[in-house]
């Protein structure tokens, strides 16, 4: 299985609040960033959290966001936010 995204790709984080454990914080949902690193494929923590085997594995990415984009009131600055996000949460942007 190949990763769907590569470094430099622009991605948007899906907006979803399922009534179960998930790994993508609310503040980053709906935001657009760019893939920095493909960490590799790992067991799915949203399955492991319920005693599952975490398979199939999911690709995990380091995604970079402008802080001014993430936080409405952030003062003008080149600051970045880096966050690890699993592939099912990413959409092409």
């Amino acid at each position, binding site marked *: 299985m190949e990763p769907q995204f590569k470094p430099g790709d622009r991605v948007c984080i899906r907006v979803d*609040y399922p009534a*179960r*454990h998930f790994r993508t*914080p*609310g*503040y*980053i949902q709906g935001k657009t960033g760019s893939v920095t690193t493909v960490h590799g494929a790992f067991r799915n*923590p949203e399955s*492991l*959290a*319920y*005693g599952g085997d975490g398979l199939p594995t999911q690709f995990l990415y380091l995604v970079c966001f402008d802080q001014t984009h993430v*936080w409405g009131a952030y003062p003008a600055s080149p600051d970045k936010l880096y966050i690890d996000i699993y592939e099912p949460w990413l959409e092409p942007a």
Partner: protein
Amino acid sequence: MRHVHDRGGWPDAGLIARAEHDYAMWEKRTDAMLRVLTRDRHIIRVDELRRAIESIPPRDYETMSYYERWITAIETLIIEKGLLTRAEIDRRVETIAATRQV
């Protein structure tokens, strides 16, 4: 809707308390217990701990301390996995409470 534990950018969440403080013995024991259950015995996964903490009803979550959330989640998981029953835990708590009153 955002869940109670999902705090990043939470409006009016207030400042983070940065003061250092000592840990109570029960907090140290809770920490040790989790390490035995996860790293040493592989009975609980940290993913499961997170899920169990997030399952604490919001009103309780807001009033519990850090390690109160941990021990509550550990209880949930060891009952779920059949290591102990709720009755066994309650009985032990009663025994300890009775000893303390002497």
